[in-house]
């Protein structure tokens, strides 16, 4: 008998032992048992294992009695159980409103804090200064509300001056002067 056949036979015999076979299958199993000593020994082994399990893993007598068991259980049944958190919110609208209000307040505060941050001041000189062979400098002037920026490029033989002023509308104007070195 190959391994697969042996397994099928073993399953059949176990199911016979457990009383889980149809009439036809039972007849088949009993025929196998009647004709094969090894199969009978196998079933006997399973019966011994079952009997030992019942001795070691079964309870001879259940304590307490049914009445004592019920008397101990009954007070717990009448105690109300704690509902889940979502049910508490569902049943108590005030709790839901309070929670929603708190969440809205947190969101509003977060947005307000975000608006307090000042926008970065544009620094055009920073971009130009990164070019090789370029020099950018801020020059102090006596003109109020005005900034003078000098840009010099050796490669291009070029010097540019910017005068940044703040006009009445708040915009920034720029006037430039370029000069090339002669010779």
């Amino acid at each position, binding site marked *: 008998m190959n391994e697969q056949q042996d*397994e099928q036979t*073993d*399953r059949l015999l*176990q*199911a016979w032992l*457990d009383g*889980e076979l149809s009439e036809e299958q039972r007849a088949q199993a009993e025929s196998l048992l009647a004709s094969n000593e090894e199969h009978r020994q*196998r079933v*006997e*082994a*399973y019966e*011994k*294992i*079952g009997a*030992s*399990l*019942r*001795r*070691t*893993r*079964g*309870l*001879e007598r*259940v*304590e*307490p009695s*049914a*009445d004592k*068991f*019920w008397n*101990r*259980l*009954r007070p*717990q*049944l*009448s105690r109300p*159980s704690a509902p889940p958190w979502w049910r508490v919110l569902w049943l108590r609208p005030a709790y839901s409103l309070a929670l929603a209000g708190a969440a809205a307040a947190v969101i509003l505060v977060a947005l307000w804090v975000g608006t307090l941050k000042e926008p970065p001041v544009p620094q055009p000189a920073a971009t130009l200064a990164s070019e090789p062979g370029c020099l950018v400098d801020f020059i102090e002037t006596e003109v109020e509300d005005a900034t003078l920026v000098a840009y010099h490029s050796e490669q291009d033989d070029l010097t540019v001056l910017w005068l940044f002023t703040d006009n009445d509308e708040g915009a920034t104007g720029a006037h430039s002067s370029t000069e090339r070195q002669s010779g």
Partner: protein
Amino acid sequence: MQKARPVDEDQQWVERCQAGDLDAFEPLVKQHYERAVRIAYGVVRRQEDAVDVAQNAFLKAYQKISDFSGRSRFSTWLYRIVFNQALDYKRKRDRRKVVSLDTSEEDGQHPREPAALVDSAENPREAAYAGEMEAQLERALETLSEEHRQVLILREVQGLSYEEIAEIAQCPLGTVMSRLHHARRALRETLAQWL
């Protein structure tokens, strides 16, 4: 053990519980508590703990009784709750300490001294032999996976049918048969010299 009550009678009490009659739960408890404790004992191995587990399971069953649809028998539905509660209890207990076979000395029944054979004066050699076999059986059981071990115990010790085991353990019928087959075969091979 009490004779199983017809299904119709359980259903009647279940419906009254679902309508809010707390005292209608009493006949259901008294009918099924013994088997519930035995099923729990098969997992947790201590009678006191088994009673606690069974109590918690009945409490949970009562709280969820409105969820019971009647598709299965009440007893099977209840025993599934007992079984799961017992497994949870055992997992929590095992996390707290290492469980060895020696801790079974705290149980009412010690595998090395089966209650049925301790006082046997007729054939002490046979008694000693059976005791040693049962000790070996316990060791062999611990080598099985939890799923295989519990299916075997539900079948051999609680006498439940394949269908009941499938409902309680929440696995297909084929899986129950496969696990039983594997568990018995493994034990037969391990205990070959004792059988």
